[in-house]
């Protein structure tokens, strides 16, 4: 045991080392990377495959099926979801949760890429190469917008300049453009004139193509140098293109502009639109490099934008979202909580232990905190709200070892030993029990540390920080506290305070069975109460932002979606509660928050990000807005989203119905919607079945076509040229190559009768009207098809009304769904918050057996007796008695964070039982009769137990009272659980001990 005294014997060295570690911690605190939330590894990806001209059923058959088959072969993929719309399939991939480090995840994505490549070999001709986006959780920490002039191309040009400037910053990893209008040169010929002149898109495109070549001219040697020959075989500028002569079939030539409108404009059909406060804008999402101090990053970006503002005039550069400010704010608040925690804990220590003893114990609190920060930094830690909050939680725990050690040294001092001897004696006595107590607390955090998946990644830093801190606190208790105590503590003359706990001890000693019965009853009541507990898995974030999604029926034209978004913009324009709005049409909002689901290429979707004056009244405002929008735009589903913490969830309530039969799926969806409609507390009920999309099918009469020297291909090409245009090369004088498209004058807006009498040029050059060779019929096809893990699926979803939590709805919903008939061909599963919370809870609870085994192992090592281990373990459920009323009293939901709190409690409450039993054993070893030994233990240990409880509660108070939405549920669960568990431990452990060991009272305890 002599090695334990090294610290004591080399006091100066010990203290110097401790101070050095603290100083390192202080430096680390300043230089550590700062973020708002922990980074969740990119286990999700989006795969976008475009098949021009195909309807959803074709894509499902020819593209999605082979793709999903290949992807299903990748073992590490746990979920494949495809949304198949006209011309595009968007597949969401999710990797299994056990993959945690970036390298392993990237290796899996490479494997996925190989399988995608294999699938492409089975694709029909014309499918564009799939694009895999594995950066979907990458947060665009700063979202800037360029506004000022409503010309999208001019905005884009300015945005490109700003992007270039931003990318010069080292801290910027990427700049993503939102609302990119695209760029194309349209040659829209006048249909009537073209017909008269005997021209069509094909001829025109061919002529333009031949004049816009980019061919090398070779080089010649001139003197000692090589001289390149550059034939100007391409259009220099738009004017050059406009005036290029077009040779007519008659042999005459006319300038292009006399027969066609030539203009440079946004790409057709329009892909996405961004607007800020009702005006057209182009957005720049600035992505910081990984593991960086976001606050510094924010300052750099802000300085640059301030500088750029004057240079982009007449355009204006504005900040739409600015996460660094929130990071700074949040971290500052939490740091304040940390300081406050230290102060409160110190105050409690000084007031309860006396000035000298209190100060000795309190002095190690900041030291341990700083030393832990240093170690956390060296292990690659990042400061974000979870790691700092974990440090606050740890405050109350880290002091326990110091208290026990200092108290024990004081006891020995009081009993006449000198400082160093007292410290040595205490060290010898406590080194192992403290190790056991610390070990049990550490064990309680193991499930959190081992949790897999997004939840695990999100919360991992809580156990990491707490475990580091506890380990540090143990070593400080062994080295630093004895050193300080030996030097500063003095012999105290204290009355036998323990006498005052006699009445408490008497309750259990005199009526052990009654106590147990009463506690058992209370426990059952609490367990019943738990079923009535409000559940909200992850709490709302505390941002003054509201994301409003307008979902029009799939297949809606982007113009219709724009009109709906404009309604919303008008609605909020004069609302004093709304500070600003940013609208994204045809796509989801950029990832300005870490858990927003991403929807690319969705013309039926608009998202409006509203910045409000405050977070208060946000829910009521959201309700009001939805009501108004339902009145103004009944055909759109309006979904309001207050930023939530935790992993991304589409909707709190989700019912996924799977069947391969489209018609069965359709009928069952209606039935499920009807059930959902009957539930209270839900709104924005919607499903993704789609309402069908009109299709004009042209059936070519091959005989008639043959007589006119035409083929089916001619018909298809003619239709495509008329509406979308035919590529006639690229204009290469701009920054990026710009496609030149030749199309009919009206393009997408060609009237149907005109389409029917479209002229099709045959090989001989004479036009044949479409109606001569084809008949067309009107058909309705599915507008969207969803696959989930290869099964055709429809998801019915709903949001919860303000104040409703999902468990209030799920029960009745499950009952009603059970009344329908389901089988293996027609089945349903619940998604949304239920699934997310099951996954998260599963991730944590899966490792519970490990914890229990660890606890039992440590306790057995300590007590070497199953009955004592059992007594200790029984105290764990006691914490639950307090948790539930505590959460109810402080109006906190029982969610994931509360669950974490309860788990953490387990490790803390067992410590109380351990120290109590230790003293009972001690007493019995000294030959005291059992009731007397128990009585003595209660008398001796109640004060330290209450003291450690008081410090833990004091440490948690700043978090419990913080304005954040994340921490109060956890803090209150821990506070109330700890209070009740402490009180009950003091009653239950003696009572149980008496009951279990009464018959064994003659045993000699070692």
């Amino acid at each position, binding site marked *: 045991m002599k090695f334990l005294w090294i610290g004591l014997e080399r006091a100066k060295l010990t203290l110097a080392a401790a101070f050095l570690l603290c100083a390192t911690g202080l430096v680390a605190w300043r230089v550590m990377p700062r973020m708002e939330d922990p980074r969740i590894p990119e286990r999700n990806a989006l795969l976008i495959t475009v098949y021009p001209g195909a309807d959803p059923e074709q894509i499902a058959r020819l593209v999605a099926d082979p793709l999903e088959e290949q992807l299903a072969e990748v073992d590490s993929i746990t979920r494949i979801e495809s949304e198949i719309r006209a011309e595009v399939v968007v597949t969401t991939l999710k990797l299994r949760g056990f993959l945690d480090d970036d390298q392993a995840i990237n290796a899996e994505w490479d494997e996925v890429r190989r399988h995608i490549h294999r699938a492409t070999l089975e694709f029909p001709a014309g499918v564009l190469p799939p694009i895999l986006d594995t950066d979907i959780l990458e947060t665009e920490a700063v979202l800037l917008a360029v506004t000022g002039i409503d010309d999208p191309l001019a905005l884009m040009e300015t945005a490109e300049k700003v992007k270039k400037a931003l990318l010069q910053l080292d801290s910027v990893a990427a700049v993503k453009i939102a609302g990119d209008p695209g760029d194309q040169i349209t040659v829209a010929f006048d249909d009537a004139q073209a017909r*008269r002149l005997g021209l069509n898109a094909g001829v025109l495109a061919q002529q333009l193509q031949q004049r816009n070549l980019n061919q090398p001219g070779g080089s010649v040697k001139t003197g000692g140098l090589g001289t390149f020959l550059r034939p100007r075989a391409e259009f220099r500028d738009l004017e050059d293109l406009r005036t290029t002569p077009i040779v007519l079939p008659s042999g005459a030539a006319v300038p292009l502009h006399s027969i066609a409108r030539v203009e440079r404009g946004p790409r057709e059909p329009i892909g996405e639109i961004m607007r800020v406060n009702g005006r057209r804008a182009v957005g720049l999402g600035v992505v910081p490099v990984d593991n960086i101090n976001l606050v510094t990053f924010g300052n750099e970006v802000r300085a640059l934008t301030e500088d750029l503002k004057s240079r982009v005039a007449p355009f204006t550069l504005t900040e739409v979202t600015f996460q660094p400010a929130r990071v700074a704010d949040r971290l500052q608040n939490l740091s304040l909580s940390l300081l406050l925690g230290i102060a409160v804990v110190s105050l409690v220590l000084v007031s309860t232990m006396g000035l000298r003893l209190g100060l000795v114990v309190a002095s190690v609190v900041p030291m341990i905190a700083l030393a832990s920060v240093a170690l956390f930094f060296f292990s690659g830690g990042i400061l974000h709200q979870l790691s700092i909050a974990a440090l606050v939680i740890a405050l109350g725990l880290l002091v326990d070892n110091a208290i026990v050690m200092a108290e024990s040294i004081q006891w020995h001092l009081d009993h006449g030993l000198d400082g160093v001897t007292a410290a040595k004696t205490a060290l010898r006595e406590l080194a192992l029990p403290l190790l056991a107590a610390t070990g049990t607390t550490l064990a309680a955090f193991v499930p959190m540390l081992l949790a897999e998946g997004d939840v695990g990644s999100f919360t991992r830093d809580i156990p990491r920080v707490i475990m580091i801190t506890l380990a540090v606190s143990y070593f400080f208790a062994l080295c630093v506290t004895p050193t300080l105590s030996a030097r500063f503590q003095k012999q105290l003359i204290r009355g036998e305070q323990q006498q005052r706990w006699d009445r408490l001890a008497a309750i259990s000693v005199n009526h052990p069975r009654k106590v147990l019965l009463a506690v058992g009853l209370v426990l059952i009541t609490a367990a019943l109460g738990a079923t009535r507990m409000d559940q909200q898995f992850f709490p709302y974030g505390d941002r003054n932002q509201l994301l409003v999604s307008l979902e029009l029926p799939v297949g809606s034209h982007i113009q219709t979606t724009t009109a709906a978004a404009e309604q919303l913009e008008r609605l909020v324009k004069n609302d004093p509660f709304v500070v600003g709005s940013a609208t994204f049409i045809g796509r989801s909002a950029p990832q300005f928050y870490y858990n927003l689901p991403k929807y690319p290429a969705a013309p039926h979707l608009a998202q409006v990000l509203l910045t409000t004056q405050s977070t208060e009244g946000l829910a009521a405002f959201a309700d009001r807005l939805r009501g108004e929008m339902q009145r103004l735009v009944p055909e759109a589903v309006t979904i309001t989203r207050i930023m939530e913490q935790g992993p991304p969830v589409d909707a709190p309530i989700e019912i996924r119905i799977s069947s391969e039969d489209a*018609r069965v799926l359709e009928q069952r969806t209606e039935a499920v919607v009807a059930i959902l409609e009957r539930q209270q507390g839900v709104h924005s009920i919607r499903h993704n079945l789609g309402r069908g999309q009109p299709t004009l099918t042209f059936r070519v009469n091959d005989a008639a076509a043959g007589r006119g020297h035409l083929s089916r291909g001619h018909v298809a090409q003619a239709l495509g040229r008329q509406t979308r245009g035919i590529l006639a090369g690229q204009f290469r004088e701009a920054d990026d190559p710009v496609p030149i498209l030749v199309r009919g004058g009206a393009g997408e807006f060609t009237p149907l009768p*005109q389409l029917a*009498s479209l002229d099709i040029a*045959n090989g001989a050059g004479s036009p044949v009207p479409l109606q001569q060779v084809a008949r067309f019929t009107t058909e309705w096809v599915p507008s969207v098809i969803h696959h989930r893990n290869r099964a055709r699926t429809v998801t019915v979803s709903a949001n919860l009304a303000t104040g409703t939590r999902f468990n209030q709805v799920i029960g009745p919903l499950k009952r009603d769904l059970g009344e329908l008939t389901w089988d293996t061909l027609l089945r349903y599963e619940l998604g949304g918050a239920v699934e997310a919370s099951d996954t998260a809870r599963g991730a944590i609870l899966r490792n519970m057996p490990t914890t229990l085994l660890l606890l039992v192992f440590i306790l057995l090592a300590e007590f070497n007796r199953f009955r004592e281990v059992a007594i200790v373990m029984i105290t764990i459920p006691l914490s639950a008695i*307090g948790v539930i*009323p505590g959460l109810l009293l402080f109006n906190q939901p029982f969610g994931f964070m509360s669950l974490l709190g309860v788990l953490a409690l387990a490790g803390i409450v067992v410590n109380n039982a351990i120290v109590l039993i230790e003293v009972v054993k001690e007493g019995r070893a000294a030959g005291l009769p059992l009731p007397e030994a128990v009585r003595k233990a209660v008398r001796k240990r109640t004060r330290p137990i209450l003291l450690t409880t008081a410090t833990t509660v004091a440490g948690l108070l700043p978090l419990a009272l913080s304005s954040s939405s994340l921490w109060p549920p956890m803090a209150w669960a821990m506070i109330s659980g700890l209070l009740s568990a402490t009180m009950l431990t003091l009653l239950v452990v003696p009572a149980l001990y008496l009951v279990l060991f009464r018959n064994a009272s003659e045993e000699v305890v070692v």
Partner: protein
Amino acid sequence: MRLLTFLASLCLTTLVLFVLWWKQPAFAEPQPAQQPLVVATAPVTLAQQQSFRLYGVTRARDTANLSFTVGGRLETRPFEVGQQVAKDQVLAQLDADPFRHQLAGLQGNLTELNTLIAQAERDQNRSSDLFQRGAATKEEVEKVGAGLTAQRAKRDALQAQIKEIRRLIDETTLRAPVAGVVTQTFIEAGEYARPGAPIYALSGAGAVEVAVEVPESLLPHIRLGMSVSVDFPLLGRRAEAGTVRHLGSSSLGPGHLFPVHVAITPFDGLISGLTAEVAIAQEDEPQISIPVEAVLSPSGERAWTFVLVDGRAKRVPLQLLQLQEQGVIVRGALKHHDRVVIGAPALLHDGDPVIVGQAVTP
């Protein structure tokens, strides 16, 4: 001990509060929400008559290819394409010299013949005198008379030849048969023009019609005398009424369609050669149409819509016929002026009460 009492009472209070709360039902039992849904509606309209459009060009009803009946070198051809000509105006002149020379020869022959005839008449008078005086035989008299008759017949033939040559000379001048516009020229001055070869194409300045070619699939929808509308896309989409004047009974062969001529009332600026679109309405029974947003057909197998009846949405099955510019022609239990729900919310069922809101659909 005070701390203990405080903590114990805190626990007790919490428990009491909890039990009190627990006795309250957590929330009211779910009741069917029969609150009316807000929906957007649109009227059921009579379908626009289905029409198909055909493209053609205007042309004069009177058109002529002008040619010479005689051959010869073209001396003058003063008019070019597009020039107006008056009736009887000289359009071209062939070189008439060969005919004139012929005429001169014939006229010489005639003079010679006239001299011979005069001589023969004198001979006849003389032989008649001689016969009366008995100085000549009757045979000699008759011989002289026959000679004279033959000469006269020769003269008649020669005179006819001269007349023909004069006519031919006249034919070397090409005159406009009607007032009109030169639409084409074929031969340049100096070239040899064969008889009958066209020199000019002339469009009469009178009525103008539109000639279109019709695919056979549409032919059954066209009757002689039916009214159609004619658009002129290059005259600012000017629309005029027209009547089918001629219906081709046979096409011109493979790759060609059936010619149809549509007469239009003249207006200023109506000339031959304009691009015209002829819209021919199909004369079907009146049909009803609803906006495409009102149709629900998620799986594409069956379709329905919701119609507003007494403040409730009633589900009506539909048969979808033909997509039109403003909607889709349907068959189903709908009437003109009924109102159908557009963009029906996901949770709308047959018989649900609804309130009519606005629609953004343009």
